[in-house]
């Protein structure tokens, strides 16, 4: 048995962790015990990629099967990391259409969470650029699912948290790009209204995201820096610059668990103040930055999750439908600012419609906040959840470690349909994760 946790390092669970080397062995691993789920690179924050009894590590399946540079169509195994795709195909002029905030996620994980990027408001999520998925169901069948064949299974698997079966391979499209650089424009917004207006105005930008200073209160509540981005053409680069920037391995790392008091309301406020002022100075004009810091600002600090100390941290990411979002977001930010221990990573962004049955995105605003696990944080977040549910919103399963069944069921009306499809693919309930036990499975 092995102690395993998600990126948030909460909860930590003892599980039978296997790393099969063949698809047959994956089948055996799933068949001979009730309650297993696939795990990619472990970047889901909570308990999504931990099996009820057994966890099937998939990162060994990292082969590219084929690639057609004429169409950008690629067939690959589910354990390939987006970092690997970017490093391998970026210099050849292709990038994934959708990247989340870290490039160290597997393709299988990205499908299972139907991850979104800074372009979700206009280009949709990871699932939109999928052609088909090779799925090993809980019943033991291996089927190719797509919008045309087994389409129910396809739309249940996109965003289905690995609960329809083990994702073995996928066929998807990569985006042709001229360069690996992004033309970035920073806008500083002095409060929440200004931030939301700037995001609305950024609807036409391919990429947009806001970093919120969640320590700011009063008239500055919700003050933000909005980052808009477009793929830069070759002629926008400085003379002599490579068309594709070098992706450095994380230079810095957090070697130990920081004492949990490192992050307190004073250090967080000081950091946020500094960050806001530095960013505000850059605001206005546009400049060209490497895709790495633009898309993956935290990847340069490996093991940054250890900053929150041994007990781990919780990320609370909700989405609130557009109508009424202003009032709810204001209320959440007010409560968080009063509390004072939310971290530097508070992100606000607009989302469009999700593709999968359980995909997180819906048209509205998503807010992501990190909290160290301590004190009355669980009660506090339950109260935030009530605001989210009342506004017709929901929480991102890939980040979740603690929401209640009631919150989940209220937020995901397609759940009943998902459960029926899951049952048909896995009548004996072989595929079960800690997350599904907590939120889905009959008790």
């Amino acid at each position, binding site marked *: 048995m092995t102690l395993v946790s998600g990126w948030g390092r909460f909860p930590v669970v003892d599980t039978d962790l296997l*790393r099969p*080397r*063949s698809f047959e062995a994956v089948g055996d691993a799933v068949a001979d015990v009730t309650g297993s789920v696939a795990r990619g690179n472990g970047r889901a924050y909570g308990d999504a990629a931990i099996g009820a009894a057994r966890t099937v590590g998939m990162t*060994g399946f990292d*082969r*590219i*099967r*084929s*690639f057609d540079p004429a169409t950008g169509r690629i067939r690959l195994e589910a354990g390939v990391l987006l970092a690997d795709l970017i490093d*391998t195909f970026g210099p050849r002029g292709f990038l994934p259409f959708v990247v989340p905030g870290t490039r160290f996620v597997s393709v299988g994980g990205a499908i299972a969470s139907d991850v979104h990027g800074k372009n979700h408001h206009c280009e949709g999520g990871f699932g939109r650029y999928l052609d088909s998925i090779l799925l090993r169901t809980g019943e033991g069948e291996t089927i190719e699912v797509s919008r045309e064949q087994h389409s129910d299974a396809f739309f249940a698997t996109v965003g289905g948290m690995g609960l329809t079966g083990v994702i073995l391979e996928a066929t998807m499209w990569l985006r042709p790009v001229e360069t690996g650089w992004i033309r970035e424009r920073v806008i500083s917004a002095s409060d929440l209204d200004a931030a939301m207006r700037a995001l609305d105005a950024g609807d036409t930008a391919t990429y947009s995201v806001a970093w919120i200073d969640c320590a700011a209160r009063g008239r500055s509540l919700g003050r933000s820096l909005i980052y808009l981005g477009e793929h830069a053409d070759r002629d926008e680069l400085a003379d002599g610059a490579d068309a594709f920037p070098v992706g450095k391995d994380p230079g810095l790392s957090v070697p130990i668990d920081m004492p949990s008091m490192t992050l307190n309301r004073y250090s967080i406020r000081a950091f946020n103040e500094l960050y806001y002022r530095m960013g505000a100075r850059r605001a206005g004009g546009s400049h060209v930055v490497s895709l790495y810091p633009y898309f993956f600002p935290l990847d340069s600090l490996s093991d940054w999750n250890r900053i929150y100390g041994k007990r781990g941290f919780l990320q609370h990411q909700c989405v609130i439908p557009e109508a009424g979002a202003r009032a709810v977001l204001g209320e959440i930010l007010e409560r968080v600012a009063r509390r004072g221990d939310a971290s530097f990573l508070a992100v606000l962004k607009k989302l469009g419609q999700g593709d999968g049955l359980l995909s997180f995105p819906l048209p509205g605003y998503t807010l992501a906040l990190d909290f160290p696990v301590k004190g009355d944080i669980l009660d506090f977040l339950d109260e935030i959840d009530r605001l989210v549910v009342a506004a017709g919103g929901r929480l991102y399963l890939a980040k979740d470690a603690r929401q209640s069944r009631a919150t989940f069921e209220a937020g995901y009306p397609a759940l009943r349909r998902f459960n029926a499809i899951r049952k048909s693919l896995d009548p004996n309930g072989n595929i079960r994760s800690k997350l599904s036990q907590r939120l889905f499975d009959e008790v």
Partner: protein
Amino acid sequence: MTSRKSVLVLGGSSDIGRAAARAFAKAGYDVGLAGRDVAALEPDAADLRTRYSVEVGVYRFDVLDTAAFDGFVGSLPALPDVVISIVGLLGAQESAQSDLAHATTIMRSNYEGPSLILGLFAEKFLGRGSGTLVGVSSVAGDRGRASNYVYGSAKAGFSAFLSGLRARASRGGVHVVTVKPGFVRTKMTEGMKLIGPLTVEAPVVGDAILRAVETKTDVIYVSGKWRLVMLIIKTLPEAVFKKLKF
């Protein structure tokens, strides 16, 4: 054949073998993957071709079938520039203590086979006057330990063979690299308790092998920490060492 350099990886389906093949293909080498199960090598071959646009061949090779070695070398379409032997078998020390057949397999897989095949390539390389041979040995060969001396002694033999071969071949323009990886997270070590700070992932070993070949390094410990650890282990007096249970 192209004018690119070429590498042959013996044990191409192992984790370190796959990692080494990727590192070399990325650096522009054409690749030969050799192993017992040719069908299992095909997906890796396709992966290398797709990623790096190099030529990749797959060949059947069984390290225990020494009688077939001459034929194997002769059947290759061309003599490669670099040959890497990653084959090996950890086995089970406890059963090897009484099961002579198992002990023999461990010894042959880690010493006899790898030494003979690299020795054979060495003669071809010396005839040509160029080439690099890489043997993946083990820190376990630096000193026999209670917990794995059957494996360790075979690796010790392999290390000694490589060291002697290097001394002889260097005069003929042929370089020999000995790799002592330490703990690597692979299928061979799955389930073993590995010490985190002393453990590396397979791609780190693959990159280190490429670097050693290109810089003509003689002996590499993949993690520098292992050089120190093994220095201490090697210099402990036998009277102390025999009391240690590891």
